[in-house]
């Protein structure tokens, strides 16, 4: 893409010189007869220092040492603040307290002890010590060099290896146990800032004089956490080491391999779980008296159902992203079957809602309906707000601090939410915001606070007519179609995915053009997720470092490392 962009610029220069025929031929040759605009020439992303998310930490440990070890330790990372729609973006704005450092250390000690215990050492260590009761510098160095490369996401400097071997040797001599010593050194590795932080490092870009790009290891990490939600594997680090990752062919090959890997599913589950704010399920509960069918297992299955639907639709079958909002195909479990009022068999099975069912698309799945309701009743306002914020990237202002809910909570003898909200909205300070959320939220009132279908509320037939940004409809299908065709829908996914990939919220000042470029490409490619991932990962914006944000001082400030040490470590 970088080369294509440069070539097209060259062509336009040629056009000015009057070589029109050659220009025309060249344009067609390079663009494949497409009229798509090239990536904006100045697109770039900022350097960032991000704390690993809990899931990234667990995935990394699991991929390096095995799922039994990662599963035995709770990820010691602190919760993140949702920032511009994503928890992952909050990772670029968080540090760790001394208490959290202590938790990281405890987890590191636990992991290190398990890695070298008698059940794991034979297959996790590349060598056996000469004596189990004495230090063995050679074996320790071999293990630490190999493991440190995967944990640091770059080759370790020999001085770093040497420091850790000294730790291992000293501890082994004191404990008269080689493995205890090695465990101590591994613990030290695991609590390193370079392990728990993803640190972007810049270097001069030889293809764009005067500009900077991520160094190969930072690019490998960015790609890996973007697509796999985990640290780079050996092959990706090898591509970085060899320099292939900074060639068009090498980068394309690496991205294609990552998209073809089963880990892409893990990575995209993490992204959509974040984008759809499914962390709310961790504390979601329903009143068991009103919704006796809803148990913890039901809600966990609701979350899983939507993630399965998304992954199946977007990755397995490579379908149009917009159709997620109208699809009748999903997956069903036994506990969910009861909520949906449908029969099913054990385990997760594919399920298709019939044509006369009111269920179609993500908005009619229990995960959306139950998560954006109150514990005891549905909420058109919460649903409308979630619809706008999660899927259209719009911001609904919070209610004023002195809002009076009494008219809503004690609206008198009015059976339906539409009527209750009408009473509430007699207050002009409330009415404005509710106009943004309620018309589409009310269209989902055929689903109660647990997501079960109903035609009446307190005996009154529900009026589910509504309107979404100028599109008027009469029923739920009208809403889902309006959502599917909403012009902001695909742009929002692009926004979130780009932010997720580059490790922080987008900047409307700098990223507007490149986001428009990705959105246009997304549409041209049939709104297929894998194409969008491909475009973002191979873009100049993903690799190039935004001017003025190249200093290693940023990294040093965040991690306490000395700038020269950072540069040296990445050489």
């Amino acid at each position, binding site marked *: 893409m970088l080369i294509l962009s440069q070539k097209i610029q060259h062509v336009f220069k040629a056009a000015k010189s009057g070589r029109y025929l050659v220009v025309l031929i060249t344009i067609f040759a390079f663009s494949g007869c497409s009229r798509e605009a090239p990536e904006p020439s100045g697109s770039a992303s900022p350097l960032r220092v991000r704390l690993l998310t809990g899931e990234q930490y667990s995935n990394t440990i699991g991929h390096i040492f095995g799922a039994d070890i990662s599963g035995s330790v709770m990820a010691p990372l602190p919760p993140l603040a949702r920032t511009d729609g994503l928890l992952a973006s909050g990772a670029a704005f968080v540090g760790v307290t001394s208490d959290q450092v202590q938790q990281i250390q405890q987890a590191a000690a636990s992991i290190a002890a398990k890695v070298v215990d008698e059940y794991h050492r034979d297959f996790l260590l590349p060598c056996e010590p000469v004596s189990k009761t004495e230090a063995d510098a050679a074996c320790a160095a071999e293990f630490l060099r190999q493991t440190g490369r995967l944990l640091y996401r770059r080759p370790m400097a020999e001085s770093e290896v040497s420091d850790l071997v000294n730790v291992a040797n000293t501890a082994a001599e004191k404990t008269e146990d080689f493995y205890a010593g090695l465990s101590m050194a591994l613990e030290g590795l695991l609590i390193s800032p370079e392990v728990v932080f993803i640190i972007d490092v810049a270097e001069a870009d030889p293809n764009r004089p005067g500009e900077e790009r991520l160094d190969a290891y930072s690019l490998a990490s960015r790609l890996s956490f973007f697509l796999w939600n985990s640290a780079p594997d050996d092959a990706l680090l090898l591509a970085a080491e060899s320099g292939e990752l900074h060639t068009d062919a090498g980068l394309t090959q690496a991205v294609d391999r990552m998209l073809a890997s089963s880990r892409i599913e893990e990575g995209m589950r993490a992204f959509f779980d974040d984008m759809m704010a499914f962390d709310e399920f961790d504390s979601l509960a329903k009143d*068991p008296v009103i919704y*006796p*069918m*809803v*148990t*913890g297992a039901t809600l966990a299955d609701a979350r899983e159902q939507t993630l399965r639907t998304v992954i*199946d639709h977007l990755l397995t*079958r490579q379908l149009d992203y917009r159709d997620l909002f109208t699809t009748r*195909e999903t997956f069903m479990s*036994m*506990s969910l*079957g*009861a*909520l*949906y*009022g*449908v*029969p*099913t*068999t*054990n385990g997760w*099975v*594919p*399920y*298709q*809602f*019939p044509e*006369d*069912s*009111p*269920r179609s698309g993500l908005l009619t799945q229990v995960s959306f309906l139950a998560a954006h309701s109150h514990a005891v009743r549905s909420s058109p306002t919460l649903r409308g707000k979630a619809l706008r914020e999660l899927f259209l990237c719009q911001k609904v202002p919070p209610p004023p601090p002195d809002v009076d809910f009494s008219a809503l909570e004690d609206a008198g003898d009015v059976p339906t939410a539409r009527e209750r909200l009408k009473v509430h909205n007699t207050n002009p300070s409330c009415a404005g915001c509710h106009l943004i959320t309620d018309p589409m939220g009310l269209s989902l009132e055929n689903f109660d606070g647990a997501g079960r*279908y109903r*035609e009446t509320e307190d005996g009154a037939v529900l009026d589910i007519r509504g309107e979404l940004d100028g599109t008027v409809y009469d029923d739920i299908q009208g809403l889902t179609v309006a959502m599917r065709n909403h012009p902001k829908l695909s742009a929002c996914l692009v926004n979130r995915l780009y932010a997720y990939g580059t490790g922080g919220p987008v900047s409307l000042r700098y990223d507007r053009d490149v986001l428009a470029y990705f959105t246009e490409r997304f549409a041209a490619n049939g709104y297929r997720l894998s194409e969008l991932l491909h475009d973002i990962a191979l873009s100049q914006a993903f690799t190039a470092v935004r001017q003025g944000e190249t200093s290693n001082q940023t990294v040093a400030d965040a991690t306490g490392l000395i700038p020269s040490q950072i540069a040296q470590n990445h050489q």
Partner: protein
Amino acid sequence: MNVKRIKPLAVLGLTTLVTTGVLAETSAPFVPEDGRIGYVMTNLFWAVYQTPDGKEECPQGYNDGPREQFAKLFPNHEQMTVEETQLKQEIETWHPTTEPDPLPFYDVEGPLSWGLNLDGEVGPNDFTHPDGTEGIDNEVYRAVGCIIGFRGPDGVEVIFQDKAITDRRYNRMMIELGDVDDLANDDHVTISIYRGLDTLLTDATGLKAMPGGSQRIDTHWGAGLVRHTEGKIVDSVLTTEPVADMVMPWMNLGVPTIQIFRDARFQLELTPTSANGLLAGYADVESYYKQLIRNDSTHHLSNGQISGVSLYKALSRLADAYPDPETGAKTAISTALDVKMTQVYIVHPPGEAEGADPVTR
């Protein structure tokens, strides 16, 4: 997604019932989709008619259990061997006889009982239903009604069985009504009895069974439990024709056993979400007793003041059906069980043709 994989559900009429409102309580006539509706058992226990203090049905009080009988039989047990006392009673519990009971045993003496008129006759030994219906056949009640362990809500047998039927998939019995035109009135419906394979859907407490769950049919180990019969619904009450021999899994305290009921029939009040009423028939005496002592050790029997030795003699004495061709002794005893069921989607095996027997297909 492979849509074809989900087609069998639709083919079998197990499609969504959302639009028909199957789970909604309603007074309007209810017609199950494709004329089918399933129910899964959530409670099943011997119907025991109880007055508050038991004086009406048990004027002589409640029966002794193993501890009380032991004290009466072996007042000098400290001077006797284990073989002469504990083991002797244990042996007799496992190998009971029909010899007259040397200790007093109190049958139910009251005139009322839950149950059905199984033989169509009104005889001198029959009970009267509390609603006034005469000719109720329930001799199991006569035998167990004055034993504390069989009386609710705290009797040990009641507690164990209540828990076991929901916890144990071994006990997951279901009925499926077919050809239902109206759940309130239908002069002919089919009834199939299956065992399910799956955990019971409950609320968040885990104690209350909820409608709307799904159960696959146990076509393998449960093949021998499948039965078919017919029935009719009048004013929302289903009455079935007798099933010649119904086998009822009866796992309790982790021990799998069975009860065998002859001429078994249901009388159930139906709603779209529940089916409650009676299962009545003639319990095989030997199976009945075997279930009791396999499920309950002397420890448990003692807690419920249930003397296995005396109960076996009572059951044999009160047995009222199916005489042994050689000895003439009755081998089965009339009974009724309270049964509660909740609606469930019965999932037939994939590929099963509509109406086909899932076991013999």
